[in-house]
């Protein structure tokens, strides 16, 4: 605003700007460089992975990945992971979204108690519950099945699904639904014709979120599956025995979908958490 004191000001401002930009770059490097190292290892031949010293550029050899693909049980584990995550995604939305809608649209007796139940689950180390469930599943025949694990993962994902869909539904003004009712809609058609189209991108984002929760879960997967290991459980079980290149290729396969998913939901990440805070 003033022109008099710009000279001493610009220097400190320039310095501040330099510090600011280098800090941003540094923090980006802090996130990316370890991922890059994993990439180098994945795209190198098994021999290179186990050799020393390491080159800091990948040699684009698919040896480690093909070793991973041919390792006994690995592809089944990958398939199981996809299956469990897919089921978790569908179940958590189908079960969670109606509750999110109820929380955003109705005042009912017991609403606070219900909210408390949802919030309580977030304060618990949920994977621990896999221990007694293992016993329960043996009795019901769900033990060591993809579906049984998907049920547990759905329990992990449901609090998020409810809170996220709650925030999404709250973002749709009730007036829009009321307008649809006065224009000839039933509750159901107003939902399908007005609310659903508006909410669909957000629902997709929270479904993807549920997928990632399940995809990444290690403890319950390791406890509940024996033959039908998911990728995480399989890798964990073989950590002591498997060669380095197998670990790195496996880790890489674990990371890739996560990168894509976070990219797909990035627009919703903050909006979802903003309200899921309450």
């Amino acid at each position: 605003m003033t022109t008099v004191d710009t000279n001493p000001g610009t220097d400190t401002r320039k310095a501040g700007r330099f510090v600011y930009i280098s800090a941003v770059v540094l923090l980006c490097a802090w996130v990316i460089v370890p991922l890059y190292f994993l990439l180098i290892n994945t795209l190198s031949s098994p021999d290179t992975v186990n050799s020393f010293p390491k080159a800091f550029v990948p040699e684009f050899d698919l040896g480690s990945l093909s070793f991973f693909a041919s390792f006994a049980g690995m592809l089944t584990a990958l398939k199981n992971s996809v299956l469990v995550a897919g089921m978790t995604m569908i179940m958590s939305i189908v079960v969670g979204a109606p509750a999110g809608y109820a929380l955003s649209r109705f005042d009912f007796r017991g609403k606070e108690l219900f909210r408390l139940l949802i919030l309580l689950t977030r304060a618990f180390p949920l994977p621990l519950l896999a221990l007694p469930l293992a016993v329960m599943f043996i009795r019901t025949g769900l033990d060591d099945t993809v579906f049984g694990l998907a049920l547990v993962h759905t329990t992990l994902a449901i609090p998020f699904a409810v809170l996220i869909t709650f925030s999404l539904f709250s973002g749709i003004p009730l007036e829009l639904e009321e307008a649809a009712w006065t224009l000839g809609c039933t509750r159901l058609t107003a939902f399908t014709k007005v609310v659903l189209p508006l909410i669909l991108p957000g629902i997709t984002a929270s479904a993807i979120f549920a997928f990632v929760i399940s995809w990444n879960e290690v403890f319950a997967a390791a406890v509940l599956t024996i033959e039908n290991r998911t990728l995480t459980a399989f890798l964990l079980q073989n950590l002591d025995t498997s060669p380095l290149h197998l670990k790195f290729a496996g880790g890489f396969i674990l990371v890739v979908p996560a990168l894509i998913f976070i990219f797909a939901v990035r627009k919703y990440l903050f909006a979802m958490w903003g309200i899921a805070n309450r």
Partner: protein
Amino acid sequence: MNARLLPYILILPVTLFLCLFFLYPFLLVAKQAFNNGSGFTLENFQEVVGYWKFPISLKNTLLLAAAVVPVQLALALLMATMVNKMQKGRDLILYVWTIPLGISDLAAGIIWLAIFEQSGFLNSMMSGLGMIDRPMNFLSYQHPGIVFLAIALAEIWRATAIMLVILVAGIGLIPKEYYEAAEVFGASPWKRFWRITLPLLRPSLQTALVLRVILAFEIFAVVAALGGTLFPVLMGETYAYQFDLLNSGAAAAMALIILAISIGFTLIILRALRVPKGAQI
């Protein structure tokens, strides 16, 4: 459909689900922990607590949480405020910074293994710079400090993003006018951060800390990938009781101990950061 019943019909599936897969198993854990087949007992707890590894794994878990969570909080706050005043490239930077959010603890452990293992990148770098003659085995019992550091770094790397997201969302909820008003009244950027951002951010700080602290006590796969048996933690011991020792009563007792610690810390955080009614945004 009856409008009065509708909300209950809508929450029924979740309620059933949580009763069946959350409350019921929770009761089962409690029963398993306190029951030896003939009645109430504290044997399982005595056994677990009396085991020589218990004090170590408790100490390790707490130390790790104490080292990791404050760093993450500071880092997340720094990143959130930096993003907040960013004009260009905000979305890209945020995407990069939130990438670890999607990465599992196991994958994070493996990623940092690539750096710290004997033929890994840290050794390569150090030998490239002539600091060492031959690769060192960092992740061994001779270097407990480095094992701890590797695990802590992996955790900080992986789980700062979740706090960042919560804090960025929280800062987004603070109306810009407050900052403008504070500026008009002569508050420096530093003062504005301490006097406006932090107090108004308390609800988000609460959520972020609770979530992080609970997850910190559940730490398991990162440790398994990097430290193996060198660095026992509570969750790893629980897993060992269940699988290696096939003692589900002891595993249940461990689970309850972790639960109790989590709840205790949750209450402390909620109490320390509580926002008086009427002082919310």
